[in-house]
């Protein structure tokens, strides 16, 4: 990034902790790590608005890991809750009952269930009203909190509770992951970005960049989920790195509709290296390998990066399909 940034290396990560230890997320959860890093980048004055999901359980009365504010809403309505807080803060400041220094950054945090499915409409409304807020979606590609049921973020050929591998459906999920980045961009949000916890500097810089932009600032974090995806929690960051290196999870941002990839892998690692790390794709390798399904995934990744190359004159060498 050309603009000045506080974040040059990972060592620049702010040292203040706003999420106390002792939360109840699974060991190795990428979702809570995303919230921790996001909060560090934003600083202390934050009001979180959360819709049902794994993160909801992290605050379980009477114990809370959050040192900041938290409003819990129904599944569909976190952005509406954010509107209420934003308006209240603005009114109080206009009346002189709140100092500018006491203002809060309003951040919606939900999983993909709320972002891609159940809260999609209220997010569209908030974007249309040009609400000045942040949206952090920790995307673990299914409804993790209730036992890993499919959402519209669940990728092709992933198994889940509701897309199990059967004789009729040997690859599990037949649907394709919704492109939420493009959907949000199409709604004219001024800033949309993807994040991966494994690329911490890129993550911190994007949050920093959003701070300079008024209006909806929307982030999708690729949140490794050891419990739902089926891998040893110690590999959480490695799995995310592989998703980026294989090109499965592109790191990019859109400023006023103009898309730029913030990291382009020089040569894509074959997707199979990523898929084989997780039980949810176990059926693609056991009892026998399913090359057609793996090739389908590889082709869609290659097509994506070919388009990026054409549009942004950057080049990622495709991996063999």
């Amino acid at each position, binding site marked *: 990034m050309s603009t000045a940034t506080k974040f040059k290396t990972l060592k620049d990560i702010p040292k203040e*902790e706003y999420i106390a230890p002792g*939360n*109840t997320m*699974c*060991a190795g959860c990428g979702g809570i790590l995303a919230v921790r890093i996001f909060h560090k980048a934003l600083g202390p004055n934050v009001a979180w608005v959360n819709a049902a999901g794994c993160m909801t359980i992290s605050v379980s009365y009477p114990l809370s890991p959050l040192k900041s504010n938290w409003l819990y809403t129904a599944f569909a309505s976190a952005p509406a809750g954010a509107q209420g807080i934003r308006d209240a803060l603005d009114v109080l400041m206009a009346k002189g009952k709140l100092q500018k220094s006491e203002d809060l950054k309003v951040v919606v945090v939900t999983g993909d269930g709320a972002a891609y499915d159940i809260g999609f409409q209220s997010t569209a409304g908030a974007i249309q009203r040009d609400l000045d807020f942040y949206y952090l979606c920790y995307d673990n590609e299914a409804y993790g*909190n209730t036992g890993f049921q499919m959402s519209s973020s669940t990728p092709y050929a992933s198994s889940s509770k509701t897309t199990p591998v059967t004789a009729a459906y040997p690859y599990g999920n037949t649907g394709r992951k919704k492109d939420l980045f493009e959907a949000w961009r199409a709604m004219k949000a001024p800033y949309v970005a993807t994040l991966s*916890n494994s690329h911490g500097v890129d993550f911190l810089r994007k949050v920093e960049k959003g701070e300079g932009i008024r209006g909806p600032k929307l982030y999708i974090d690729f949140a490794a989920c050891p419990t739902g995806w089926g891998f040893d929690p110690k590999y959480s*960051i490695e799995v995310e790195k592989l998703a980026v290196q294989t090109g499965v999870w592109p790191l990019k941002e859109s400023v006023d509709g103009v898309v730029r990839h913030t990291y382009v892998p020089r040569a894509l690692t074959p997707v199979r290296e990523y898929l084989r790390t997780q039980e949810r794709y176990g059926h693609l390798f056991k009892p026998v390998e399913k090359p057609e399904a793996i090739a389908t995934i590889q082709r869609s990744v290659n097509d994506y990066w070919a388009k990026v190359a054409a549009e942004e004159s950057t080049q990622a060498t495709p991996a063999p399909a």
Partner: protein
Amino acid sequence: MILRVRFHGRGGQGAKTASRILGNAAFNDGYNAQDFPIYGAERRGAPVTAFTRFSESEITERGFIFSPDVVAVMDDSLTADPTASPFAGLRKGGLAIVNTAKPAAEVNGGRTDIAVLTLDLTRRALDTLGKAVLSSGIAAAVARASGITSEAFMRGLVEELKEVGLSDDAISKNVALATAIYDVVSPIKLHTEELPARADLVPLAVVVSGEGTEDVVNTGNSASRHTGNWRITKPVIDYLKCTDCMICYAYCPESAMSAGPDGRIAIDYDNCKGCMICQTECPLRAIGSQMEGLQ
């Protein structure tokens, strides 16, 4: 007479399935029965609670069991875990069945007014099933102790295991395990009394609100949960190799690492869950691992 059983396990050990097996077994034996888990997040390693009630007459009680006659504790680390508190409300004269290799006196939660039965179910499950799934074993122990017949129990066991989708081979291994445990336990006649109301609740800073629950005001108070007891392996920093690069710090999902004024990284073992991300990510391999419980 009504018997109230509360199961305490960790996510993945099978507490909910155990409560269902026992419910089925009691029903097959002619009792009225209820079984249900606490609805909550399914976190691997986090405390899980499930309940079974059964009675010769109609059961009019509903909801969580706060004063059980029997508690079944599937992991002895839970006996010292304040978020599980398996002995809370256990009636005077009640029975605790604890999965442990330790002597009863070490796992009775300081209670001398109850009976404690210890069984090393984990070892038996590992020997028979090859993994530490304890539902069949603990259900067998409770069923036998409470006098449910073998025939009713085995039928209930198989019904439930079929329902959760186990293969025939896995079911027969579970039956073998359950039979072995059923045979080493004896029926126990319980005469229990409810405890007086508790006076040992943890004080929290609260604002009493006009309606609903009190507002807790000490935010970030979760550190007192001590998720360190979820840990199976423990990360240990070798300070001779560590260069304070902060990479492990950045990636710790638990905020369980901190940098001192001298920049040295330290681990908060009270709450580190042992995910071992720090070990994987350390570029200098300066973090080793130790099995918990071993020195």
